[in-house]
């Protein structure tokens, strides 16, 4: 790379340990397709592919939503040879998970698959309607006798008058249940044919019919685990689909970077739970938040706040999950929930003060780095101007992409650094992982008991056990301290490098002499590589040594990407629609 500005020996040094900075070049190349590093390129791309396998996220705009949804519909329609509305009902019921539909099909067969989703596939044509043409039919809802032309029969063969159907649909659509409007007959869970709904509702209220269509379309996003709305405010109208089944951070076409797990800003190396707790802690409690905490409880399944509107304590969320209002438990097992569980809370003023001090320590550092990030963002423009100036002046090289790369590296690293403080706050605090630590302790105990279980049972020496317990606790504490020290060391190193990089980039390099400029370039590139490596090491340490010990906890973080948060690519339909 960049072989033409002399001094190739020096440059070779960083080429060899810098696969990443070069692959990083690829994503910010506007007019940077210089021939001079073409021969090295293939090699670097090979490295690149091994890190990221293909584009793992796609932007779905309002326009491509229809096509994206159709892809899945067509797959199901072809595989099961069903009509579109049946395929849609199936996919809505199984959260647009085509694999799941097929798995259920293989395991339980056609009938059960359809029955669970309320799909009734019937072969009958519209024959009977012509048969009843002259007669009248009695509708079981309004008890009116209506002419046979004024009634509609659904796939489940239940027949009611058009007026009653329409009223039923309007109520359901307004209740927000467009995706699963069932038949009116008692205990009939069959999903109504969307075309018939559209036709009947459209005849009375075309706006509502449009709304219905939109709800059906948006089900693809809202019920789908792999698709999420971009959380931008005001909303950009886009959604993101991920192709791999793992936690990641993505960048929408509108430029917003967010965590796919919790839809808040990209926050790694904090886990989603940590970030939620942290932002809640930092945020002033607004009135709305107060109201929500007082009047609602989060559904254990979909986590939306649920308000109770009746007396019964067995609450049913709109996602159909029932849970106990008292304890938030998923099943309606009321037995355990009324029992008082003694939480050993020692809230003396001393510990409260200590907690506050600890929080302030981490918060101040988090805030400082966030503020630095905001200031550094402003450098982007001035840097751009500087680079333009360099273009105009006649230097031997016209390639300044490494400056932008360095700047981007600084932005990413600064963010990681700021989020590493709330991470440390929770990782080494007592609020989280309490249960996990207890479990880990139990595991240790079990292991030891297994070794000398026989002897122990015979002796039953209470004293010894107590002593052992204490030692075990001490050991765990020691282990924790060692890990914390290691983490803090890495964090400090990383921090020092980030600050240095920031300093380098703020230098007035545009007025440097050629030699000085070359020196500055070398320093900047080398530092950028070091920072990248340190960042990766930090993530590795967090993933394997810190979070890795708590396998039961759902603390997962998006993996480190030296290129930064991945930009979602445009969705192109494979159907060519």
């Amino acid at each position: 790379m960049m072989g033409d500005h002399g001094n190739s020996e020096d440059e070779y040094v960083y080429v060899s340990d810098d696969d990443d900075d070069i692959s990083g070049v690829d994503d910010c190349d506007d007019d940077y397709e210089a021939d001079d590093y073409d021969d090295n390129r293939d090699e670097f791309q090979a490295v690149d592919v091994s890190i990221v396998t293909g584009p793992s996220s796609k932007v779905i705009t309002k326009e491509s939503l229809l096509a994206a949804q159709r892809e899945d519909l067509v797959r199901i329609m072809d595989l099961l040879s069903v009509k579109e509305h049946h395929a849609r009902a199936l996919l809505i019921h199984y959260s647009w998970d085509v694999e799941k539909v097929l798995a259920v099909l293989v395991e339980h067969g056609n009938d059960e698959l359809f029955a669970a989703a309320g799909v009734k596939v019937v072969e009958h044509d519209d024959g009977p309607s012509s048969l009843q043409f002259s007669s009248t039919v009695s509708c079981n809802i309004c008890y009116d006798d209506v002419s046979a032309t004024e009634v509609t029969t659904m796939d489940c063969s239940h027949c009611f008058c058009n007026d009653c159907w329409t009223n039923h649909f309007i109520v359901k659509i307004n209740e927000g249940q467009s995706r699963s409007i069932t038949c009116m007959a008692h205990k009939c869970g069959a999903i109504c044919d969307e075309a018939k709904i559209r036709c009947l509702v459209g005849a009375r209220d075309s706006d509502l019919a449009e709304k219905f269509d939109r709800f059906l379309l948006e089900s693809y996003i809202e019920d789908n685990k792999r698709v999420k709305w971009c959380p931008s405010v005001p909303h950009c109208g886009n959604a993101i689909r991920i192709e791999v089944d793992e936690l990641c951070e993505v960048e929408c076409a509108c430029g917003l970077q967010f965590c796919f797990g919790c839809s808040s800003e990209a926050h790694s190396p904090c886990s989603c739970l940590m970030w939620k707790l942290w932002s809640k802690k930092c945020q002033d409690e607004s009135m709305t938040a107060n109201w929500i905490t007082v009047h609602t409880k989060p559904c254990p399944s979909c986590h939306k706040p649920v308000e109770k509107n009746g007396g019964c304590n067995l609450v049913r969320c709109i996602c159909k999950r029932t849970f106990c209002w008292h304890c938030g438990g998923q099943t309606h097992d009321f037995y355990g929930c009324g029992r008082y569980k003694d939480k050993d809370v020692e809230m003396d003023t001393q510990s409260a003060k200590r907690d506050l001090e600890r929080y302030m320590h981490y918060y101040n550092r988090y805030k400082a780095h966030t503020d630095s990030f905001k200031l550094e963002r402003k450098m982007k423009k001035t840097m751009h101007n500087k680079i333009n100036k360099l273009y105009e002046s006649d230097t031997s090289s016209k390639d300044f992409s490494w400056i932008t790369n360095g700047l981007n590296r600084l932005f990413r690293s600064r963010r990681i650094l700021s989020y590493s403080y709330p991470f440390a706050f929770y990782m080494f605090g007592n609020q989280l992982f309490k249960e996990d630590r207890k479990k880990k302790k139990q595991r240790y105990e079990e292991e030891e008991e297994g070794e000398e279980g026989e002897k122990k049972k015979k002796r039953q020496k209470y004293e010894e056990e107590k002593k052992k317990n204490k030692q075990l606790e001490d050991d765990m504490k020691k282990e924790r301290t060692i890990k914390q020290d290691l983490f803090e060391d890495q964090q400090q190193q990383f921090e020092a490098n980030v600050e240095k990089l920031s300093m380098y980039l703020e230098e007035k390099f545009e007025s440097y002499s050629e030699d000085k400029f070359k020196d500055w370039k070398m320093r900047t590139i080398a530092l950028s590589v070091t920072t990248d490596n340190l960042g990766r090491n930090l993530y590795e340490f967090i993933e394997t040594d810190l979070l890795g010990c708590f396998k039961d906890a759902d603390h997962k973080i998006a993996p480190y990407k030296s290129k930064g948060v991945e930009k979602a690519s445009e969705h192109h339909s494979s159907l060519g629609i």
Partner: protein
Amino acid sequence: MQASRARLFKEYKEVQREKTADPDIQLVCDDSNIFKWTALIKGPSETPFEGGVFQLAFAVPEQYPLQPPQVRFLTKIFHPNVHFKTGEICLDILKNAWSPAWTLQSVCRAIIALMAHPEPDSPLNCDSGNLLRSGDTRGYQSMARMYTRLAAMPKKG
């Protein structure tokens, strides 16, 4: 609004015509308001509610029959799925399992069935539910019978 009125009127006529069809249920519409109904139901036999007559109050919403009527006991009753103070009833067909094909008459029938077959796992009256769940059928029955005597039977003498 019009649809619900028409439907209720038809139900009213049906009730008038088949007054003797179901002797356990007596549905009466409010003289001035077709959206307010009361019902007298007899406690099912072989239950602690036998011999009692219970009064129910119906408040019918304007979107009836697409939305369920609100029903509560006016007579005090000791039953796991009925709130002891307000008389509110926890019954799936009055909430999310409602179907427009139900009528006020059939709701009464469902409530009678609920009286005979309580669901102690989703209790509104926890004391009553706990008795049943702990297997103390006798305790539950004697409590329920006592309240039936006190509240749902004509006082003697």
